[in-house]
């Protein structure tokens, strides 16, 4: 095989790749933040005594978790305009990733809620806090600290899912990598650099999140 590696074309567009990586990270951060809010609400709905709330939450989580994210992306981008909802491609992707993240985070938070001892809620109520305040100031902080490792995993996998935004031409890392690949024919170099960037980013995020986990961990 006679193939000489030549990274020139890739380095020339490296700032594009970097900006793509940044956009991907931004999309992941926004989606996990908004998704967490959805996930919290849905998790409380799942453990509530109200059957209607429970059903809505279960249907949402089951439906989203069993549908490929690419189908969801295309559905939001191509099908929603038919119902009169017009979104730009970035907004459309954020909506999809948020809804997707919400479903996975619901499961995480539900598990976290189930693992809390009953006494915690009782203690909150016993000192005269209302149901709402107990949830907000006692239950949620403890639960979130317990599920931090699962949250980190989800963040990394959501960050990797931002690569799919390239399918609707959102200019993130994979999108630019494809462009460089097609324009320069430096096939091996392009994909080596792009996947290495993902790997390094995932590694750095994982290391950073582990520090946060250690800082916030409940002392035992």
């Amino acid at each position, binding site marked *: *095989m006679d193939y000489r590696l030549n990274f020139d074309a890739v380095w020339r567009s490296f700032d594009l790749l970097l900006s793509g990586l940044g956009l991907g990270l931004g999309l992941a951060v926004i989606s996990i933040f908004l998704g967490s809010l959805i996930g919290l609400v849905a998790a409380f709905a799942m453990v509530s005594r109200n059957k209607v709330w429970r059903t809505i939450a279960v249907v949402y989580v089951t439906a989203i978790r069993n549908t*490929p994210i690419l189908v969801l992306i*295309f559905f939001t981008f191509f099908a929603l305009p038919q119902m009169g909802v017009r979104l730009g491609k970035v907004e459309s992707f954020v909506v999809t990733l948020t809804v997707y993240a919400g479903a996975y985070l619901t499961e995480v938070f539900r598990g976290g809620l189930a693992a809390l001892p009953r006494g915690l809620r009782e203690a909150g109520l016993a000192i005269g806090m209302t149901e709402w305040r107990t949830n907000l100031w006692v239950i949620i902080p403890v639960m979130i600290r317990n599920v931090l490792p699962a949250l980190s995993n989800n963040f990394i996998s959501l960050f990797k899912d931002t690569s799919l935004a390239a399918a609707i031409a959102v200019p993130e890392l994979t999108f630019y990598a494809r462009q460089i*690949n097609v324009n320069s024919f430096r096939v091996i170099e392009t994909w080596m650099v792009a996947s290495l960037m993902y790997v390094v980013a995932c590694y750095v995020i994982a290391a950073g999140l582990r520090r946060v986990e250690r800082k916030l961990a409940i002392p035992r």
Partner: protein
Amino acid sequence: MEFTQFLNELWIARGALWQGFQLTVAVSALAVAFGTVLGLFVGMMLVYAWAPFKLLVRLYVDFIRGTPVFVLVLASFYILSVIGIQLNAFQAGVLAITVFCSSHVGEMVRGALQAIHRGQTEAAMAIGLTFRQTFQYVLMPQALRQILPTWVNAATEMVKASTLLSVIGVAELLLSTQQVISRNFLSLEFYFFAGLIYFAIDFSIERFGRYLERRLAAY
């Protein structure tokens, strides 16, 4: 009125969608089968291999797990032809998802093998089993039982990942759906329909996993 129009179009498109469905099942089944075999070796290497080999396999697993499946699919599709391996889009896609599956199964197998109590190996040694026999009759059966539920869930992941092959032109269910939509413009209805089919596949696999989990927990 609109719904009857959809049913009408669905009937016209039935052949294309059925073929797409078959391709989706084929891609997923092949990737899971190959990925599992490869993953078993990966998992064994991660636990028992000579240290330098172990490091190499660890690098492989971490690299694959740190890369989005979409990038794996695109890289596999574009790179292989350049280095002189002639694979069509279907084969390149199956290869990418196989590699993805192998890293997942590898980690599962590693976890399961490491979770087996040392005493099991010592007992096997004590009754005079060779390492190979210990592995075959003592460790592997226990590890396999433990990974079965997770492995079934990984299968749903592979079905979902198979949609990515639509981007490199494999006419699996998602691409055939898009082709149908480009003819009749019923994007809402047909994306919904495709989602429903994927849901049906994944939901039944997931239920099957839960069932196995309950069955095996009884022992």
